C-alpha cells in the first residue's frame, strides 16, 4: 500500500496576539516535515506569524448528531448575557 503519511490539521495565527485559526490540513510523516509543509502550503503570502500542527487523530471533536442536547444547557440561562439586565434610565458607561 502506498503510504501518504499521517493527516495533520494546520492552525495559523495571523499576527501576534490574535487567536489561531484552522486553515486546512496536510499529509506528513513526522513533526518537522509537517511544519515545513505547513509553511510552504499555507503561508506563502504572509498569512501568519505562528503555526500550530495537530495530528488529526489526536483531535477530540463533539458529535454533530448530539449537538442539540449537548449544547442545550446554555439555552435557558439568559442571565449570562449582559442584555438580560435592566439598567436605570440615564445610566451611562455601563
Amino acid at each position, binding site marked *: 500500500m*502506498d503510504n501518504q503519511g499521517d493527516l495533520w490539521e494546520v492552525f495559523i495565527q495571523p499576527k501576534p496576539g490574535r487567536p489561531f485559526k484552522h486553515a486546512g490540513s*496536510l*499529509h506528513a*510523516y513526522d513533526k518537522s516535515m509537517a511544519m515545513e509543509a505547513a509553511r*510552504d502550503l499555507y503561508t*506563502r503570502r504572509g498569512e501568519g506569524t505562528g503555526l500550530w500542527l495537530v495530528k488529526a487523530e489526536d483531535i477530540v471533536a463533539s*458529535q*454533530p*448528531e448530539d449537538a442539540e442536547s449537548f449544547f442545550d444547557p446554555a439555552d435557558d440561562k439568559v442571565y449570562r448575557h449582559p442584555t438580560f439586565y435592566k439598567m436605570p434610565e440615564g445610566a451611562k458607561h455601563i
Partner: protein
Amino acid sequence: MAYDLSQEDPTKLAEFQAKIDAEIKIEPKDWMPEGYRQNLIRQISQHAHSEVIGMQPEGNWVSRAPSLRSKKILMAKIQDEGGHGLYLYCAAETLGVTREQYLKWLHEGKAKYASVFNYPSPTWADMGAIGWLVDGAAIVNQVSLQRTSYGPYSRAMVRICMEESFHQRQGYEIMHRMMQGNEAQRKMAQDSLDRWWWPSLMMFGPHDGESAHTSQSMQWKIKRESNDDLRQQFIDKTIPQAELIGLKIPDPNYKFNDITGHYETSDIDWDEFWNVIKGNGPCNKKRLDHHIKAHTDGAWVREAAAAYGVKQKNKLQTA
C-alpha cells in the same frame, strides 16, 4: 447520473435539504445522502486532479522562460497549483476516500481532470493565454464555488480564490507585453488566443440541458450557478480585455447585444469537446503517463519518509 434517493431515509433527506435551503453548510461528520457524497467525491477529486495535471503545460516552460522575472513568477504559479491540488485532496479525503484511492482512480482513467490541460503549450505566449484564459475561467467557476454547500470544499475555494487572481493578472500582463512588442510577438500572442479561446469556453462543461450532474448538484447547492451562466460571465469579462490590447476573438460571429448587455458567440464545437473528454485530445496520454511516471519514480521518497516516520514514533515510545 441520477442517484436512487428512494434508498434514503425520507425524514433525514428532508432535514438535509432544509439545511441546504437555509444555507447551512454540511460538514464531514454530518449526515448526508450517499448521492451527495458521491457527487462531491467526483467533483472535488476532478478539481484536485485538474490543479495537479495543470502544472504540466506550464512546467514545460520553466527552463525556457525569457527572463529571471518570468521564471520566478512561473515557478510561484506552478507551486500554487500544487498547493491548490493539496487543499482539494484534503477536502476530498474528508468524504472517507483516501488520497491513495483518488490517485489510483486518476491513474486508471476512472477520474477525470479538466480537458483543457490536454492541449499543448508550444509557445511562450501560451503561458500568457493559460494564465489569462484558463485561470480566468477557473476563477469564474471557483468564485461561484466559494458558496458551495460542503464546508471543506467551500473553505478550500475561498483560499484558492485569494491566491488565484495573481495567476490571471500575470497571464494578461504577458499577453499585453507581447502585443506591445514586434510583429512576430503580436502574431504569437494572437495565435495563442486562437488556440486557447475555444478550449477555455469548453472548461465550463456542456450546455445546461446536456449536463448530467447539473440539476441535482444545483438542488444540493454543490454547484451554485449553471455551466452556461458561468460561461457567459467569462465571455463578458474576457472579450473587452482582448479588445483592449488589440487581440481578435477567433469567432467571426461574436457581437455585443445592446438589449441583453451580453456578448453573443458561435456555438462550441461539441464534437471536439467530447472527443477530448473521451481521451483523444492532443496530450491526454502524455499528461497521464507523466503523472504516473512521476508518482512511480517518487515512490522511494514516500517509502523512505514513512520508514523515518515509524522510526521517530518508536524512538518516542522507548524514550
